[in-house]
């Protein structure tokens, strides 16, 4: 065992120190890259090493109010608000982009019959669950084609495979429940389906408008639990809101405490500082590693080795340590990610900016080696032979 370890490492102690230094450097670089991928946005308040969850809401602002808002004021007051005109289809697409988890139900008014494309649609929140039913339940599975229908639509129900079904835009839905008649002018032609189903349902559907925002001011509450996606989602939302002609605002429902944010900023910079120290450390370790081999180089020179050949030998031995360090760093990062619940998403580390960070790291580590390797040319054979 000793023979093989020694054969791989040659000078075991210095090589192990070198491998540890390289692992520290590469591991911190990986995490600097990961932190960079989170971005420097102060709004997102992400804490290093922790999976975070930020809820944010998209509000449609009352159009009358919005007309009185100056654009600049809107930016200042509403932070991430914008928008000019509103298109239902776009909004539905936007909701899809959000991967919205919280909205579970879509409520709409059927016009003449349930197949008609001209419907009024309500996107509601959990208050829908409180609606009274004459039969069934509203608490159905979100990804199952089940609808709760208003009393007026009972006539359209038919039976198939011992189940009560209703065709919505020619798509068969199981009737999960029937709403209690509300009042003579009540909306007894309402249909409630899960949001996920609604997205399918609306694929070929043209909706004219979304109504009742006074009643349901929160059009959607989105939850994002992916560090990576949040930034891009917010970007897409902003792009979208910029492109449509309607006023919106996005605000974060859940914000971290200031002190936590402070910790996160300190944490980011500490990791970067450690990374720089690690680079410096590698430089010194490589220098010591090469000095440790002083006598070996001198001996080789007495047998007529060229300096170039000795360079090659040092680079080869360094690369062995380097490859081992890269493998160990990746394993360490996987363990760390597992412990800290960090998503193991390769795209986090190979995004455009991070590729550069990783390439720079490798380049710096190689340059550090080469600068130290130049020291070899200064070794005088006679003095080298005297060194221990």
């Amino acid at each position, binding site marked *: 065992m000793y*023979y093989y370890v*020694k*054969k791989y490492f*040659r*000078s075991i102690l210095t090589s192990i120190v070198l491998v540890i230094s390289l692992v520290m450097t590469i591991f911190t670089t990986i995490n600097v890259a990961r932190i960079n991928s989170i971005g420097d946005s102060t709004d997102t308040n992400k804490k290093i090493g922790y999976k975070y969850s930020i809820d944010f809401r998209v509000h449609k602002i009352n159009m009358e109010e919005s007309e009185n808002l100056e654009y600049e004021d809107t930016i200042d007051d509403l932070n991430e608000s914008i928008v000019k005109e509103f298109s239902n289809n776009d909004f539905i697409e936007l909701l899809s982009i959000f991967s919205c988890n919280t909205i579970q139900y879509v409520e709409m008014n059927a016009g003449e019959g349930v197949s008609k494309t001209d419907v009024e649609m309500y996107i509601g929140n959990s208050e829908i669950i409180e609606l009274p039913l004459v039969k069934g339940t509203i608490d159905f599975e979100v990804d199952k084609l089940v609808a709760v229908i208003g009393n007026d639509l009972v006539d359209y129900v038919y039976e198939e495979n011992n189940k009560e079904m209703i065709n919505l835009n020619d798509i068969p839905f199981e009737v999960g429940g029937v709403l209690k008649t509300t009042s003579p002018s009540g909306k007894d032609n309402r249909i409630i389906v899960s949001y996920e189903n609604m997205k399918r349902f609306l694929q070929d559907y043209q909706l004219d408008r979304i109504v009742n925002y006074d009643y349901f001011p929160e059009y959607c509450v989105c939850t994002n639990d992916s560090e990576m996606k949040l930034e891009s989602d917010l970007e897409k939302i902003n792009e979208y809101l910029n492109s449509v002609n309607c006023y919106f605002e996005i605000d974060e429902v859940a914000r971290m405490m200031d002190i936590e944010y402070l910790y996160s900023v300190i944490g980011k910079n500490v990791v970067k500082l450690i990374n720089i120290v690690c680079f410096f450390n590698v430089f010194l370790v490589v220098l010591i590693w090469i000095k440790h081999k002083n*006598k*070996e180089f001198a*001996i*080789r*020179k*007495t*047998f*007529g*080795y*060229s300096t170039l*050949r000795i360079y090659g030998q040092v680079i080869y031995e360094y690369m062995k340590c380097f490859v081992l360090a890269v493998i160990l760093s990746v394993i360490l990062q996987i363990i760390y990610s597992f412990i800290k619940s960090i998503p193991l998403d390769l795209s986090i580390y190979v995004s455009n900016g991070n590729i550069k960070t990783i390439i720079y790291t490798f380049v710096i580590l190689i340059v550090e080696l080469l600068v130290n390797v130049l020291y070899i040319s200064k070794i005088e*054979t*006679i003095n080298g*032979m005297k060194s221990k």
Partner: protein
Amino acid sequence: MIKLENIVKTYGSKENRTYAVNEVSMNIDDGEFVSIMGKSGSGKSTILNIIGCIDSATSGTYYVDDICVSDMSIGKRKKFLRENISFIFQDFALIDDYTVYENIEVPLIAKGKSRKEKKATIKKYMNMMGIEKLARKYPNQISGGEKQRCAIARALASGNSIILADEPTGALDSENSKNVIEILKQVNKLGKTVIVVTHDINVANATNRIVKLKDGRIVE
């Protein structure tokens, strides 16, 4: 034939110039077994280093087989060293991180020998030195005598015709010293030119010729 003409080696500036070797001229024939004797600081190791191309003379010329080595460029001198000269040192100069086998392999790698050639050569000289069982041992796992035999095997494995030994028995007990002297005699019988630097009269007496140095000059 090795021919040294007016070799001078000085250290320091003009005011504090020290002569390590002063106007040394000598000839050593092919296949000769020569010892260079002298006290510490007499310049014997410096001469050996100049012959071995790991040091250069301040002035004077040095020929090997009528080729002027002292005029060679660094690159050519390295090639010359690789192809003609091998060293044996007092402290054995084995690489601690390499096994006995790998230490003997070092000059063969420099010469670009094939794996098969290397294996055959190393085996031959390990057998000759009686260290074949130590192939996988590291220098810190073997005795001084074994280390020196390993160093001699390495010098011989290179196949070079000139063997330079700098105090080869300096770090050995009397028993091992005798063995090393015998080995060097055998090496000389193989047709190699052996130049030994020593202050041990027993070693010097084993050689064919003794060159005595004092204060950088040949006195005998």
